[in-house]
């Protein structure tokens, strides 16, 4: 990972800025704080963020590209409200899958059309035997059940049991937020 100096704080001695444990320096962190609620909807969003954090728009763009390359930013994208787009049936499907096969089958299930998120998670026996989670979204429960049937078939004998947990109410949806604390550097 290349370490670039913050353009707003030129460093004639050639020292690189210190990074905290998360691999973000103070300038990256300022950009995260300024954009975590959303990107400005103006022709030059990087310049707008830059004015807020005391950097040039070019520097903001360069840092965002670098963060995307490192996977800190998955992408800069629109997050739709499922319900408003007609996806009123949102099912968290959970599967009790043979431990010896779950890594292969998890990848296969994840590739099936319509699966938005797919993870292996720990069981909590005896109450919770499910170790594979796959989110499905449909315009009706019937549609989600049809998708789940495709997953069931793919998992075959390796799957002992499954459930579909529909969401019936959004209780909170603020997304990931870093606290606005001063970075300790």
């Amino acid at each position, binding site marked *: 990972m290349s370490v670039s100096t913050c353009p707003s704080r030129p460093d004639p001695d050639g020292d690189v800025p210190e990074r905290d444990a998360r691999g973000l320096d103070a300038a990256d962190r300022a950009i995260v704080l300024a954009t975590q609620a959303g990107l400005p909807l103006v022709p030059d969003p990087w310049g707008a963020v830059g004015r807020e954090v005391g950097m040039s728009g070019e520097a903001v763009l360069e840092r965002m590209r670098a963060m995307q390359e490192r996977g800190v*930013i998955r992408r800069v994208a629109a997050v*739709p409200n499922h319900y408003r787009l007609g996806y009123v049936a949102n099912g968290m499907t959970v599967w009790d899958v043979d431990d010896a096969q779950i890594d292969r089958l998890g990848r296969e299930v994840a590739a099936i059309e319509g699966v938005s998120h797919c993870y*292996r998670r720990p069981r909590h026996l005896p109450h919770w035997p499910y170790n594979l*989670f796959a989110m499905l979204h449909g315009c009706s429960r019937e549609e989600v059940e049809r998708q789940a049937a495709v997953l069931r078939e793919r998992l075959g004998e390796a799957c002992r049991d499954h459930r579909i947990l529909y969401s019936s109410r959004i209780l909170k949806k603020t997304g990931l937020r870093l606290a606005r604390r001063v970075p300790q550097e």
Partner: protein
Amino acid sequence: MTLDDLDAVDRRLINRLQDGLPLVARPYAAVAGELGIAEGDLLYRLERLREGGVLSRFGPMYHAERLGGGLTLAALAVPEADYERVTDTVNAFPEVAHNYRREHALNMWFVLATETPEAIAETIAGIEAATGLPVYNMPKEEEFHVRLHLPV
């Protein structure tokens, strides 16, 4: 604002922007060019979609662990009579990023996002103390796929 309020251009815009904005100097102009509309028209539509709640948000999607923080999915089995009280108690924790009611004995499912990985355990202990209920912690052990795309 609902699906019926969207025209064909809105739909193409929503589909296109779920894939991600190019990180270039005039990103909205670039996408507008792809869609054959004016930059100003795109910005106006995007603002309307965001204000109208069709989009929950528009911006960078940060990867919690790569930011150096902690992230987990956790669940509670909440007695129905206590559901409202427990909802308020759990939602009051700033570490709770999302919280959904789901139809199961484990009827409350929430995502915790914390500044440090260590803070997950502290937050769970705090929620257990505040609600009097055991928290089922289900951190991801493997990520096979994360790519929400809802075509309209």
